[in-house]
């Protein structure tokens, strides 16, 4: 399996065993928030920017 890389800084990303599609994770190198778009194959993208109406 190809190791996924951060789309921002190209660091290798370790995907947790219990990861889910559409889960948010952080790049351990640059801290960028990423979204797991697909688990098979593993595809990462930048998480969407926080919008004004986001919250609880």
């Amino acid at each position, binding site marked *: 399996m190809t190791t996924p890389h951060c789309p921002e800084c190209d660091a290798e990303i370790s995907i947790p065993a219990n990861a889910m599609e*559409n889960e948010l994770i952080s790049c351990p190198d640059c801290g960028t928030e990423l979204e797991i778009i697909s688990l098979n194959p593993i595809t990462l993208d930048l998480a969407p920017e926080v919008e004004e109406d986001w919250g609880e």
Partner: protein
Amino acid sequence: MRIGILITHIRAEEKLLISAFQARGIEPDIILDRDLNFDVIAGSGQLAPSGVAWSEYDVVMERSVSTSRGLYALALLNSWGIATINRYDTASICADKLRTTIALAQAGVPQPSTRVAFDPDSAMKAIGDLGYPAVLKPVTGSWGRLLARVNDSDSAEAIIEHRQTLGDYNHHTYYVQSYINKPGRDIRAFVVGDRTICAIYRTSPHWITNTARGGQASNCPVTPELNDLCIRAAQAVGGGILAIDVLEDADGQLLINEINHTMEFRNSSAPTGVDIPTEVVNHALNTIGVTA
């Protein structure tokens, strides 16, 4: 039985909720709010993005981080008779601080003194009427964004001018509250149905104590007084699964600050010892007649 969870993306809370459903032998359908494409007229027979007709869902749990998407989805689903957690009526009140204040006032629930004005001069007068310091808040918004403690008239003028010039019309509603000199913490209480299942103190050297802003969580005992106040507050907005922010004033009186309808709880099970996602899931299943 079919359960849907409406999400923007999966955060720690959604993962915990999914696990709690799985522990009850239920695999919920994950529905992304970005995939929603409702025929507003057609009704509940149309397919959800999951490929299942909306009418097949026994309950849909709304966990969108996007307030607007979540609210409109709830409005549509409830209009079609589909059970949701929370219901639109409750969520729409909680999403609006002014409507929350009105609901609490109608129910006689204690809260900080609050005024609202729509014009810069009237806003200055409203703040002056309350006295300095006061707190200006957007009527919508979360995570402590754009809250301003206004210590004097110079800063009030500056903030109002900025909001008037840079903000959209939402920021031209001036919702202002008395500043409560709380003891370096506030209380976040978790109400599930008719119970306050647990509460945390959120402690911070900053006057904004949200855990999203660095507030530290520790257990807060649920006293009969706190439970009674929170249940009254929850009932005032229609009830459901709610996170209620409570302030302690200098005299120790408890005041309701805000009520949140898609609560975050990732930092709260450990200090309280309460399995919040399991409590939430059990309540959700109870509402559709499935008991543990």
